[in-house]
């Protein structure tokens, strides 16, 4: 434990030192390359201007290089791979794309992903907003908020394990240990195998992500709600608006930008949903989503990098526009006005 702490501290110090050294050295080299000599003010000012033009590229260089290696190169490589066969050696043209369009499981995944997109961001934002408003009015609001925020700290796999116990089904005469089945039995119903109930099981999986992400939506929206000037609400009270009208016509429009950021952030997360499906069903019983399908084709049954690359590109194409919009919104929020 102590040795780990010491070594990680050492790494941090060394890292910062090498960064500082890099900036210092590169600036020194720049000064040597573009020297300022006494006597000729015009040449001197020219050299200083050139230095100012070069310096940002010099300082950003390492970061840009890493971005190219770890982001741009994989994108390009994936794009190229998508036109090759399963081992990535023979060019097959658009065959992988044609396969995807005709593949039933691919279509199923697209459909499921769309369902996730329609339900999860909306539910998280809605519950987050409602809870944020409610908890502002009660004395134990902060306790409730902490409890609701807590699932954020649990990994997706951990959360799935917890929810497996909720959806658990025991066959035969065995006592039901799953919470949901216990409740159903309490009200006189028959226990169900929730996880293998096609179509509806998608929603049972979504509930897990909603459980995790509502806390995130709640915290951000709660902060935004606190930023609303109290006087605008009081002015609306004097104008005769009731609680519902104040909420929808005065409060929500004032935090609209934040709602959009929360919504799109969760949307991006949902497009990449993987761990929950892998842990709960592994894509069986019609619950397959794109990320899991990509993983299956890449790493299971011998692997097919071509088809897997096509699926990866589809996910990327879906995420990119939302990401751009999200970043723009967030920039506007943080002082673009």
């Amino acid at each position, binding site marked *: 434990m102590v040795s780990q702490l010491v070594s990680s501290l050492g790494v941090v110090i060394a890292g910062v030192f090498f960064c500082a050294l890099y900036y210092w050295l590169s600036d020194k080299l720049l000064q040597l390359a573009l020297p300022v000599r006494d006597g000729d003010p015009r040449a001197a000012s020219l050299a200083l201007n050139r230095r100012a033009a070069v310096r940002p590229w010099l300082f950003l260089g390492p970061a840009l290089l890493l971005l190219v290696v770890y982001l741009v190169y994989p994108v390009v490589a994936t794009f190229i791979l998508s036109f090759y066969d399963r081992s990535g050696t023979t060019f097959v043209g658009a065959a992988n794309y044609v396969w995807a369009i005709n593949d039933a499981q691919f279509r199923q995944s697209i459909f499921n992903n769309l369902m996730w997109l329609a339900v999860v961001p909306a539910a998280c934002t809605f519950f987050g907003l409602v809870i944020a408003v409610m908890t502002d009015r009660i004395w134990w609001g902060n306790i409730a908020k902490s409890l609701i925020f807590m699932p954020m700290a649990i990994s997706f796999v951990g959360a799935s394990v917890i929810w497996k116990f909720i959806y658990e089904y025991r066959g035969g005469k065995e006592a039901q240990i799953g919470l949901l089945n216990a409740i159903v039995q309490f009200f006189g119903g028959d226990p169900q195998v929730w996880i293998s109930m096609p179509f509806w099981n998608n929603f049972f999986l979504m509930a897990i992500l909603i459980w995790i992400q509502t806390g995130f939506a709640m915290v951000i929206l709660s902060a935004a709600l606190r930023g609303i000037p109290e006087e605008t609400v009081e*002015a609306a009270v*004097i*104008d005769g608006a009731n609680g519902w009208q104040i909420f929808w016509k005065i409060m929500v429009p004032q935090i609209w930008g934040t709602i959009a950021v929360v919504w799109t952030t969760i949307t991006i997360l949902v497009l990449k949903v993987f761990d929950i499906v892998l842990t709960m069903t592994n894509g069986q019983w019609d619950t397959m989503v794109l990320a899991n399908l990509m993983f299956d084709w890449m790493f299971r049954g011998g692997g097919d990098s071509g088809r897997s690359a096509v699926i990866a590109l589809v996910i990327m194409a879906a995420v990119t526009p939302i990401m751009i919009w999200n970043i723009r919104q967030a920039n506007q929020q943080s002082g673009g006005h």
Partner: protein
Amino acid sequence: MAGVVLKDIRKSYGQVKVLHGIDLDVAEGEFVVFVGPSGCGKSTLLRMIAGLETITAGEMSIGGKVVNDVPPSRRGIAMVFQSYALYPHMTVYDNMAFGLRIAHESKSEIDRRVRAAGDILQLTPYLDRLPKALSGGQRQRVAIGRAICRDPEVFLFDEPLSNLDAALRVATRIEIAKLKEQMPQTTMIYVTHDQVEAMTLADRIVVLSAGRVEQVGRPLELYENPTNLFVARFIGSPSMNIIPATVAEPGDPTLISLSAGRSVRVPIATPSAKAGEAASFGVRPEDLVLAKGDDYLLEGTVSLVEALGEVTLLYVDGPVGAEPMIAKLPGIVDVKKNDTVRLSADPGKLHLFDAAGKAFPKKR
């Protein structure tokens, strides 16, 4: 149209008492200003009239109807907030129309009222703009316009000018005075800590301090006949010079002795029971003049001269009291630092307060 009557209004937050029984009768069409130092409860009182704060005890009526439990929107009031409180996501037009839409007024009626308010306040060119595209003064006018649109019987202003710069504050103050003239039937209640606003706008001023009414009266009445030390100090700038004294010979006039052994005959009646008691002697800086000859009121050394052209302020370290006295003399006066000056005042302009700070009434 309606007056506002407060009967023994009290407010407390848990154990903390904020207002200790306010009695006030505001006549219909009157312009009343609540003034007082910060924390005196004036804004709380206004918000209670608006219905934004509950009334802990007492009875409040607007237009003869008890409104203790009537929601703000049914009290016939409109309020202008210090921070304007405009709805940032709505245009100027929508800001003014919001209340009318909530009340389900017809489209044509809304349009008529909003445009009328826009005309009065010269906002017509800005009706389609969002508040963030307006200057501070324009925003303030929109806030007033929103209040006008509600066609209220009682207008409430909560320090409406304190967010404006000095020049705009004067201009907007005059606009509010004009607005009042255009609406003679509308009652207006205005909260401020700025005594200039209070003096220029009010029909009557209510001076509040620590949750109590210190004095209610016309602006000049408060200036000329403050009923206690608090009002005497609060109204007028620079504030009244207060000099500790004792009642040497009660009667009419009263002979008082100032702490440095000097005696002054003040033409104010005091009961004989007050003989020998401590008192406070007050004289306003602007009532002091340079004395000619030996007939003077006070004497002291000038510690600071502030020559403003129109007036000259002398800070005089007197033999009396710890604080320097201030004399406000008209025009330019040839007095230098460390000069010894003798000051006198018209006997009718002198004030005398008893040990508890209450004024001995002046002769009328």
